[in-house]
């Protein structure tokens, strides 16, 4: 059962990722990214990380992707020109570079295969909200508070950058 879920979700994730970088329409691209994020959330469930699966759906697939779609709507983009018209040298170089990076990652994975952890007994209890909260509000309390400060700073910074200033060119 677990094998089937993993295979299904993995194929879904890879297919939606490939579709995302190949589709012409930006909105379709965003929706395929949502599909990818949802299938990764499913993989978290297979790994018994329930809390993170929930957060992934709420924060990533919900909030962040809605933000993306809003920006796409605001910008009212045309379709990207000349990406699909001709195969250029730089696309081939990009593809080769991708293959090299992938080979590198696989090589380093192969180097540590003997050292990979065995499945431990505690795994069933690792992903619950209770287990996460226990650690988060004790050992990582400082980092948690810093995250709050970071998010506040990000909101203020985003408003500062994106606000529309009505400047009259003549004055200053």
């Amino acid at each position, binding site marked *: 059962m677990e094998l089937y879920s993993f295979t299904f979700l993995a194929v879904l994730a890879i297919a939606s990722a490939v579709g995302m970088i190949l589709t012409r329409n930006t909105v379709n691209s965003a929706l395929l990214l949502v599909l990818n994020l949802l299938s990764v959330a499913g993989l978290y469930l297979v790994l018994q990380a329930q809390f993170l699966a929930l957060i992934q759906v709420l924060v990533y697939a919900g909030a962040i992707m809605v933000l993306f779609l809003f920006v796409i709507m605001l910008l009212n983009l045309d379709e990207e020109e000349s990406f699909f018209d001709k195969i250029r040298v730089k696309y081939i170089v990009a593809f080769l570079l991708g293959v090299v990076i992938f080979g590198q990652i696989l090589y380093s994975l192969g180097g540590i295969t003997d050292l990979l952890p065995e499945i431990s007994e*505690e795994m069933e209890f690792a992903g619950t909200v209770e287990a996460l909260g226990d650690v988060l509000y004790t050992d990582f309390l400082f980092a948690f508070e810093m995250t709050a400060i*970071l998010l506040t700073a990000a909101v203020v910074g985003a408003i500062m950058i994106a606000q529309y200033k009505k400047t009259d060119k003549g004055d200053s």
Partner: protein
Amino acid sequence: MVGIDWYLALSAVIFTIGMIGVLIRRNAIVVFMCVELMLNAVNLSLVAFSAYHGDVTGQILVFFSLAVAAAEAVIGLAIILAIFRNNLSVDITKVNLLRW
């Protein structure tokens, strides 16, 4: 039980797809979404390690990484909006003021 190496390989595949997307796409928003894809792939490998160790710390790291990704998305989209106001385009090849 699916072995952890399958999760790591899947994570590597998604990461590579995201990187190719960053390299070949010219629409700034799609490039940005590809960066999110790469972040997501790394999160997957962290969760896999965490689950197989039975240690919750990896999932805490993913939690923080999600928060940082949210902050990054907000700032990045604001910058893309500002670029669009100046250039009337989000084509990254047209943003070449700092190009050597």
